[in-house]
Each structure stands twice: as structure tokens, then as C-alpha cells.
């Protein structure tokens, strides 16, 4: 069965693309070298800027260069005839590793890394390789990760300085960490097996910890860094367990699934054999892997770290907590579509968690005053949208939303950073308003970002969000309705923030001396991101003649989706009927914006919502008391348990050891007169002892 067109390969050698993660790392190391050589701090950003830019260039070239299949229609036809989920997973493997027909997934192995199994017997040789995996998903992820990172790094050059244009303390450290972060993220995305993925995963967590705690003298920053790290550990624990179980399932038993010579944790191997596992095994693995995604993408039970992570510098918030790092969870689930797709239970769990998270965090966002926190909650909410998409078997749409979201969320964060920059770090919306005239450029770019986030028609957020809402409706009407309502809420709180910040009469906090527009090095990145916020959505639509669609000629499911079909996602095509939904969601977005205008258009000093909603609003404002609940439910019992253990150790175990020690001590009291301090006497004793032993041996006989 020739499913797809013949294989082609990339024009540039794969090993060149495989160097992609290395450039930022090189940059970071160079920064370290420069610090050692005691160069002036003000120029130390160059290595990282150049390294990340090199990565971005490579990513763009890769995106254009990656061979594309012309069609996978045959497979679609095949699936429509109705096959079981696990069978479908197996066939999916056949598609993307291609059997004889094509190889859209290109693998480049650097070297064998860790040997597994018995090396001495030739029958069971497995390796963990350091290999890179190039397919559509990789290319899309790399595209926005590196490009957005480049823009943010450039922005940081302007941001990480004080009023006099001098670099802040830790300037070099900041850029080194940024480089390290891009390296980690690229490794995560490019990895060809689960272990390397896990490595990148943990590295990303580490960088996040380092960067959130960048202002470590501030207790809040240190605490936030720790919180992010620990909450991520909880998720990663599940993730690691998932990898272990996967390995166990694939290799255990007398007749393991993985054959000789195959590397058991490579994507290729895993997805090849995942169809042959029992359903309960697949579900177990999928749920455990999902835990990791929940932690890294800050989803519902583990979402508490992300808002606190706003203690880091704003570019970090933009880079890590909006554009790239939190997308790792989405990426992982999308990458593992053959696993998740074969487990309906896991998909349902993801769907429910996504819906819950979307609503909860959107309401939280509606009752906050800290601009960055509002954006953080909105990020969680948007990620929850993507989770819903993943739960509805449309990972391509979820990845599309990841893609568009990265642009406008980075834009919004950087805009908020610009506001902070202007107001000497003040970010509380109650303390200022009407910045429209003071920060004209920021205001304009922010407006576009807000529109994109709110799902204003024709901007990027609109296209991707609409697809997710649509998928949810197809899955279940209730889910669709919830998402739609959340989308409206999104528009509402986004513009609540925007109006409170930029509209109304000009109010400035007392400690902001001279509010000023940001320098060019910060404004240009904002505009670049604005371009992305406007046009990124058009990568995911098709331009077609015909009146069946919105505006007549634009149709969802375009270029990007086709592109992603070449990846492990390879989802069955879902119909794009129900175009009425487009109009509805556009209306909902406009309604949300309108409501926000009505209530906050003049930036009132007292919040009308707080009065109107009363207790509910306070619940929202207190984030549903999640932190307090966790504190009571987990932290304190654990701490008390720790005290119990500590006491056991101090009194129980040490007591036993003391007792054990007392025996030889009492014995030694009996024998200590033998010790005369003469070294040679001891030696003589040893000689005599050996001689006596030999004599005994001789007498008793061998």
C-alpha cells in the first residue's frame, strides 16, 4: 500500500540542523568565558543573541526545507472505514516511519549514549542514542520557539538595564541562562527518544528555576522559583514513571516487543509497538505521561506555580511562561498522539481537566489587578484550550493554537514589560491608568495583542481558537459551550486589563519618576511580534474560492495542518462544517470586548465587578484558595510527617546505634591494657598470630 509520495530528503545536510541546539549553548558558554575574562558586562549579550539568531535561522530554513508529503488521503480513506484505536496507532506508525514508501520523519543519530541490556550477548543489544528527530511537529515548534526567543532576547538587551542605560546586576548571568534555556527547549523539541526528551524537560525546568529566581535576593522571587521547581517535580515524577513503565512494558517478559538492535525508547520504536500493548497498559502510560504535561504546562491541579513565576524578569515571563516552556507539555502530548490516541480514557481525562482549567483560570484572571498575573492566568487558560483540543483528538489544532498563542502572548508580556519599564516596576492596575498618550507605541502593539488574544476576527488567535471550540462542539456540546463561554470571558478580562491600563484619565504611581516610551531596541521587537500576532494565523488556513466559508474564501485547516500531518500527530481529518460557529465565536469575542468597554472603558478607580459579584468575585480574586487548600491538604501533613520521621531518626535509630557502639566500647575497656603504644610490638603480635594460624592449619591439615 503506497500511502504517500516518495521520500525526499532535506537539501541541507541533517547534521547541520542537528547543530541547532548547540548555538545558544555555545553562546551561553561564551558569555561565561567573557565573564571569566572580565569583559565589560554591557557587551556580553552578543554571543547569546547571535547564537539564538543562528538557531532561528536554522529553524526557518528547516521549516522550509523539510520534505513534505503530498497527501495522506489514502490513509484517511482507510480510517474512515472504521478501525480500532490501537490498530490505528499501529498504522500511524507505518505512515510516519513510512515503511518503504517515504520517510517524512528524518532521524539523525549523533552517537550511542547509554547501553541497555546485555552487551556481552549479541542477541539483546539496545542503546539509548543521542538522536534528533525531524518531522513537521518539530519544525513548527522550533520555528516559533527560536524566532520568538530571538525577539525576546533582543528585547532583553533594552529591558535588563537601569534608568541610565547601564546593565543591571547579573546581566551576563541573565543572557547565559537565556541561551541555556533556548538550548534546553530546542533539545527537548528535537530529541528523538524519551530519555533525551526527559533531559531537555528537566533542563527547561532548571532554567526556569534559575530565571524565576533571577532576583534571588528578593524572598518572593526565591520562593516562586522553589515553588515552580517543586510543582514541576511532582509532574516530572509522573512523567519519569511513565517513561519507565513504557520501557518496562516494551521490554519486559521472555518475549519482549522490542527486537534486537532497536532502541527501546526511541519514538520510532515506541510508536511502532504501542499498538501491540494491552489497553490498560497504554492508559497507564498515557496517564503517567500526562502528569508531566500537567506540571510543565501548568494545568489544573498543578497550575499554581505559573502566576508566582511572574516574579522573574518580564522577558523571562514572556519567553518561558508564555511562548515556549509551557508549550512543552502540549508538545509532548501531541508528539505522543499514537499513545494517547489509543487510550480513550486518557483523552477524556485530558479533556475534563482542560475544561476545568480553562474556566477556573479565566475567572481568576478576571479578578486580578497585577497585569502580569492576569496574563499568566490567561496563559493557563489558553493552554487549557489546547488541552481540550488534545482531548478532542485534534492535536494539530492544538499545536496551531500553541503556534499563534506564542506570538501574541509574548507580545502582551513584552508590552506589560514595557509598561513596567516605564513605571519603574509598578504593575498594579489600581495604581495607574490612561497611559495611552504616554506610551503610544506600547499601547498600539498591546491593543493588537489583546485583540488577538480575545479572538477578534481575522487576527491569529481567532483562527486557532475557533478550531478548538469547533472540535469541542464536535466532541460534546457541553464542552463546546463551556469553551465558548470561556472565550467570551477571555475577551472580557483581556480588555478589562487593557482599558484599566491605557484608558481613562492619566494617573501615575508616585514612585514612577519619568514615565517614558521604551528605547528602540524594545519597540522593534514589539512590532515584530505584532506582525506575528496578526499574520501567524494565516499559516493555518486555506485560501480557496467558494462561498462555503467565512468571508468566502478563507477556510480553516490550511497549510500548517497539512504540514503537521507528516508528523507523529497525523490525525484523521475532521470535517470543517459548522461555519456558523465562526460567526458565533466572533460575536462572543466582540461581546466580551463590548462588556469590558461598558464596565471599564473609563478605567474607574473602584472595580465595578467586585461590587456586583460580591462573594464570587472574592473567590476569584483569592484564586479559589488553591494555595491555601494545598497548604492544608499536602504541605502541612507532609511537614508533620517529616517531624515524626526526624524524631524517629533522632531517638529510635540513633539509640540503636548507640547501643551497638556501647558493646565494643565495653569490650575495649576489658582489653585496653594490651595497648602499649609500641608499633613494633603490634607488628610482632601480628607475626606471631599469622604463624600460629599457619601452624594450626598445618596441624589440622589442609
Amino acid at each position, binding site marked *: 500500500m503506497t500511502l504517500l509520495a516518495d521520500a525526499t530528503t532535506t537539501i541541507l545536510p541533517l547534521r547541520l540542523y542537528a547543530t541547532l541546539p548547540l548555538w545558544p549553548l555555545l553562546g551561553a558558554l561564551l558569555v561565561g568565558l567573557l565573564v571569566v575574562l572580565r569583559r565589560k558586562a554591557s557587551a556580553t549579550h552578543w554571543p547569546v543573541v547571535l547564537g539564538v539568531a543562528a538557531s532561528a535561522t536554522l529553524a526557518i530554513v528547516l521549516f522550509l526545507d523539510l520534505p513534505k508529503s503530498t497527501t495522506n488521503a489514502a490513509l484517511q480513506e482507510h480510517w474512515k472505514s472504521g478501525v480500532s484505536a490501537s490498530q490505528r496507532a499501529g498504522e500511524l506508525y507505518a505512515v510516519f516511519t513510512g515503511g518503504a514508501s517515504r520517510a517524512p520523519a528524518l532521524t539523525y543519530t549523533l552517537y550511542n549514549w547509554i547501553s541497555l541490556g546485555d552487551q556481552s550477548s549479541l542477541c539483546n543489544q539496545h542503546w539509548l542514542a543521542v538522536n534528533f528527530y525531524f518531522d513537521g511537529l518539530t519544525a513548527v515548534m522550533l520555528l516559533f520557539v527560536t524566532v520568538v526567543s530571538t525577539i525576546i532576547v533582543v528585547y532583553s538587551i533594552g529591558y535588563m538595564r537601569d534608568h541610565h542605560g547601564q546593565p543591571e546586576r547579573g546581566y551576563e548571568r541573565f543572557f547565559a541562562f537565556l541561551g541555556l534555556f533556548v538550548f534546553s527547549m530546542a533539545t527537548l523539541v528535537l530529541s528523538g527518544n524519551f530519555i533525551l526528551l526527559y533531559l531537555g524537560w528537566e533542563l527547561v525546568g532548571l532554567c526556569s528555576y534559575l530565571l524565576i529566581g533571577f532576583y534571588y535576593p528578593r524572598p518572593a522571587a526565591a520562593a516562586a522559583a522553589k515553588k515552580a521547581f517543586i510543582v514541576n517535580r511532582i509532574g516530572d515524577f509522573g512523567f519519569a514513571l511513565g517513561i519507565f513503565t513504557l520501557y518496562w512494558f516494551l521490554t519486559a517478559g521472555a518475549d519482549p516487543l522490542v527486537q534486537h538492535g532497536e532502541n527501546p525508547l526511541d519514538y520510532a520504536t515506541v510508536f511502532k509497538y504501542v499498538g501491540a500493548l494491552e489497553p490498560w497498559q497504554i492508559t497507564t502510560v498515557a496517564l503517567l505521561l500526562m502528569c508531566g504535561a500537567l506540571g510543565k504546562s501548568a494545568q489544573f491541579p498543578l497550575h499554581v506555580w505559573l502566576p508566582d513565576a511572574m516574579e522573574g524578569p518580564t522577558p523571562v515571563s514572556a519567553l518561558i511562561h508564555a511562548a515556549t516552556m509551557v508549550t512543552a507539555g502540549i508538545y509532548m502530548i501531541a508528539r505522543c498522539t499514537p499513545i494517547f490516541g489509543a487510550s480513550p480514557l486518557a483523552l477524556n481525562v485530558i479533556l475534563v481537566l482542560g475544561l476545568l482549567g480553562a474556566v477556573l483560570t479565566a475567572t481568576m484572571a478576571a479578578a486580578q489587578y497585577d497585569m502580569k498575573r492576569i496574563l499568566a492566568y490567561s496563559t493557563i487558560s489558553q493552554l487549557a484550550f489546547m488541552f481540550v483540543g488534545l482531548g478532542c483528538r485534534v492535536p494539530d489544532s492544538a499545536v496551531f493554537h500553541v503556534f499563534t498563542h506564542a506570538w501574541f502572548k509574548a507580545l502582551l508580556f513584552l508590552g506589560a514589560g514595557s509598561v513596567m519599564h516605564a513605571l519603574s516596576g509598578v504593575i498594579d492596575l489600581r495604581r495607574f491608568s490612561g497611559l495611552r498618550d504616554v506610551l503610544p507605541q506600547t499601547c498600539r502593539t498591546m491593543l493588537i495583542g489583546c485583540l488577538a488574544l480575545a479572538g477578534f476576527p481575522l487576527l491569529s488567535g481567532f483562527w486557532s481558537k475557533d478550531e478548538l471550540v469547533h472540535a469541542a462542539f464536535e466532541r460534546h456540546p457541553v464542552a463546546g459551550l463551556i469553551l465558548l463561554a470561556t472565550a467570551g470571558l477571555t475577551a472580557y478580562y483581556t480588555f478589562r486589563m487593557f482599558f484599566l491600563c491605557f484608558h481613562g484619565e492619566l494617573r501615575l504611581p508616585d514612585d514612577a519618576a519619568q514615565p517614558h516610551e521604551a528605547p528602540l531596541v524594545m519597540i522593534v521587537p514589539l512590532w515584530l511580534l505584532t506582525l506575528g500576532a496578526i499574520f501567524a494565523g494565516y499559516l493555518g488556513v486555506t485560501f480557496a474560492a467558494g462561498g462555503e466559508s467565512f468571508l468566502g474564501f478563507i477556510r480553516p485547516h490550511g497549510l500548517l495542518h497539512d504540514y503537521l500531518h507528516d508528523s507523529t500527530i497525523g490525525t484523521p481529518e475532521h470535517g470543517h462544517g459548522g461555519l456558523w460557529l465562526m460567526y458565533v465565536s466572533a460575536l462572543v469575542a466582540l461581546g466580551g470586548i463590548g462588556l469590558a468597554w461598558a464596565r471599564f472603558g473609563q478605567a474607574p478607580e473602584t472595580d465595578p465587578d467586585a461590587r456586583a459579584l460580591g462573594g464570587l468575585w472574592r473567590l476569584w480574586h483569592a484564586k479559589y484558595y488553591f494555595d491555601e487548600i494545598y497548604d492544608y491538604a499536602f504541605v502541612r501533613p507532609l511537614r508533620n510527617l517529616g517531624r515524626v520521621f526526624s524524631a524517629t531518626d533522632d531517638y529510635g535509630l540513633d539509640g540503636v546505634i548507640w547501643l551497638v557502639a556501647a558493646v565494643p566500647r565495653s569490650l575495649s575497656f576489658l582489653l585496653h591494657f594490651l595497648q602499649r603504644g609500641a*608499633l*613494633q610490638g603490634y607488628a610482632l603480635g601480628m607475626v606471631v598470630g599469622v604463624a600460629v594460624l599457619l601452624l594450626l592449619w598445618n596441624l589440622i591439615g589442609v
Partner: protein
Amino acid sequence: MLLPYLLLGAILFVLGLIGFVTRRNLIIMFLCTEMMFQGIILNLVAFGRYPLKGAPTFDGQVFALFLIAVAAAEAALALALVVLLYRYQGTLDANAYRMLKDE
């Protein structure tokens, strides 16, 4: 061919031992331990050359090499200690250093 070497090794070992027990000069005592090493090296290499069964191996030589390294380490530490002790009391008599005795 093995027996004479083993006997010679044993003789060197025991002579070193006797020296260690009877001489009172700290340096000579350590020299005697080195002599015991010589006996052992001879033993090891002889066993490697004339194994009780099978073809000769080089494992004996390898272990002898390890022994030399240990001897070097011992010499470095022991001599440093001896110099320190000499500075401390001005004598190398082993009987003078009995402070470790439990009084």
C-alpha cells in the same frame, strides 16, 4: 621453576618483617616494609610467569605495578610523617613515639 622464586620471595618478606620488628629507626622500619613489598612483587610476577595451570598471564605484573604505586604513596606519606616526627622530638627512635597509648 616456581618454587625457588616463592621461597626467595618468602625469605625477603620475612627478613623485612624481622627488620621491621627489631630495628628501632623509623626510616629503617619503613625501608623494611618496602623490602616486604619486594618479596611480594617477586611472588606475584613468578605466579604470573609460571601459573599452576594454563598459559602465562601478565596479571601478576599488573598487580606488581599496583604494588609499586602503593609503595610510592606509602613512601610519600610515611616520610612526610617521619620528617614531622623528627622535627617534633628530634629523634627517630620508634620507642619515643608511644603517645597513642591509652594512658
